[in-house]
């Protein structure tokens, strides 16, 4: 469900009157919440950061099905720029907050990917004078009263957020702007509605297709994934996808055809596949482990446990062995004689062969 947010009813009037959208008031903890059959909801947050934060957070908490938050409304122009003109609708990018005590460090960025976006500063009070404009314009060219709060709640709930503002007044020119904005409220609201209908699809989203190639792979190559196998597979698969750009390439690197011929149980095949994936994602570490395993094989054969430091951060090794009889000691002595310590040391110190 997409949630539209407006500060004032006047800004949302065209949406509420639109027959196709057919919003209906929804009883909630406060007034100003509407739902439509088009997978849309509309919230009037009230003006200012505190009201917008409280109301939006309450709605997001109550409706986990919200997939996008779209903030719309009027905004002021803070600087005289050919890129900014009255009645234009601008797509917002990063929102900053001006508090009474100064600028808030935290900022929130919308999910817009377009390059033609503008930053906005949300002001703790209405920006009406040239002084306001001078104070705020170094941070952003547009000013509003809520956007930062919307971004903050969206971020908290991890919901993508978007913001579209229609430029209603030039703050740096000063004047009796509030009344003028009120007088043009219907025009602003209709413009925002048209923009919304052009930009956003009203089609209800289909069920999310959970892409998962595990099932297909299990079938094609007779594999069997336990829960921990699945977790490991997904993590390694994502790493390999980044490394080799596409799925086909990854499958080729894994030489999947060999799994059709290999004579192992489905579970063993899966373990083998995961090992291959690990080797591909961490080739250096895998090779090092193989070489170290070879180097310490005499010790392992003598039932001696060999431990290296965590992530091989130093070149020491720790041996432990339970001696039960004299033969154990003799085995150990022989194993130590067979162990090429210099080779192990070289491997741990990255000395090329």
């Amino acid at each position: 469900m997409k949630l539209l947010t407006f500060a004032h009813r006047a800004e949302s009037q065209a949406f509420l009157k639109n027959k196709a959208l057919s919003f209906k008031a929804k009883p909630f903890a406060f007034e100003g919440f509407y739902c439509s059959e088009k997978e849309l909801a509309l919230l009037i947050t009230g003006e200012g950061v505190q009201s917008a934060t409280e109301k939006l957070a309450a709605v997001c908490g109550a409706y986990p099905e919200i997939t996008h938050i779209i903030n719309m409304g009027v905004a002021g122009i803070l600087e005289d720029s050919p890129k900014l003109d009255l009645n234009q609708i601008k797509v917002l990018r990063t929102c900053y907050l001006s508090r009474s005590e100064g600028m808030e460090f935290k900022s929130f960025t919308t999910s817009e990917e377009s390059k033609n976006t503008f930053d906005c500063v949300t002001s703790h009070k209405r920006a009406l004078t040239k002084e306001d404009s001078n104070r705020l314009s170094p941070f952003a060219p547009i000013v509003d009263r809520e956007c930062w709060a919307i971004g903050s709640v969206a971020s908290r709930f991890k919901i993508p957020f978007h913001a579209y503002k229609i430029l209603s007044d030039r703050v740096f020119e000063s004047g009796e702007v509030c009344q003028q904005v009120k007088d043009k409220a219907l025009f602003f609201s209709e413009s925002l509605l048209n923009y919304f209908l052009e930009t956003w699809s009203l089609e209800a989203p289909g069920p999310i297709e959970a892409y998962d190639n595990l099932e297909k792979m299990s079938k094609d190559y007779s594999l069997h994934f336990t829960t921990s196998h699945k977790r490991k597979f997904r993590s390694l698969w994502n790493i390999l996808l980044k490394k080799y750009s596409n799925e086909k390439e990854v499958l080729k690197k894994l030489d999947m055809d060999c799994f059709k011929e290999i004579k192992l149980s489905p579970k063993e095949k899966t373990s083998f596949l995961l090992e291959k994936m690990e080797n591909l994602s961490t080739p250096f570490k895998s090779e090092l482990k193989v070489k170290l395993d070879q180097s310490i094989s005499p010790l392992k054969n003598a039932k001696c446990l060999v431990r290296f430091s965590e992530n091989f951060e130093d070149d020491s090794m720790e041996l432990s062995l339970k001696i039960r009889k004299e033969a154990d000691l003799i085995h150990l002595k022989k194993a130590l004689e067979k162990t090429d310590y210099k080779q192990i040391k070289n491997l741990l110190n990255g000395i090329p062969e």
Partner: protein
Amino acid sequence: MFEKIFYEKDAFSNPRTQYVLNKFKGIPHVEISKIEDIFGRVKKPYLQKRTNLNLFIGEKKGQLVKETPNAYGLSGDPHYYFIHSYNCIYECDYCYLQGYFHSPDLVFFINHEEIIEEMRQIIKKNGSHKTSWFHAGEYSDSLALSHITGELPLYFDFFRDLKSAKLELRTKSANIKELKSLRPSKNIIVSFSLSPKEQIKDHDLKTPPLETRLKAMETLDKLGHPIALHLDPIIFCDDFKSQYEEMLESLFKYISPERIEYISLGVVRFTKDVYNQMKKNYPSSKVHQSELIKSFDGKVRYMRPMRLWMLQTIKNICLLYGVKEEKLYLCMEE
């Protein structure tokens, strides 16, 4: 290039400020009281440098010349870096600047005379038996915009006659316009950061290609400017060794090994914060596929045998080409 230029009121009359303002007449110039009132005051997303980069001009306050961390330069001598600029026009995906200033905007500090005065004090304190090294380019590229900032002649004049001090200008650029007009000095070294061409394409976004940097090095070498190299950060890839072999082969066609003052080698490493920023800004970067681990000190880097193998491998290639071992040093590595 810039969306706006903010200049400190007190810096307005400085000829360096005037030069920059005149150079960018067509964009808004905004007078401010102090840089820190705006710059870094709010968290400006790093990638906004692509579409909305501002420039700040002012004076740096506080300590202007600082001691470097250990293993920063050739060992034995005291090393310092000086701050005359913040941020960079390039966009290397591993760059620590993305987690440093909370803003990608550029800052030019114009009080170079004060920086030089601090250097003078340090050189005096260290005495003539030690060589004091001063590095430019810790928080910015020291050549990329040198034709606009115009401070190089001042530093050349200061260092030229000093016997116990060296200046290093670190760069990824090929902007040698200013240097070409300056008389070389034995103690002013231009150090180029290089990576194999595939790595430059993948990671050093918006920087000049390898060939262009090599040509710039060759030109400066022929003019008599001492040249050094930074092979840092070294990033692992499947054909790591052959990429470095190819790069070093090309390099030594442009400049002979004995002409290079020193070569520093450093493997890629991140603080946790920078790594998180990088994951956010460049989620598909190939750095993320390259066996990085959270290390003993909280830093994100390759495990020790891998780091050492990478450094040794490149060191061996350099030695094969005749680079003397004493000219090679491992940057920020044990």
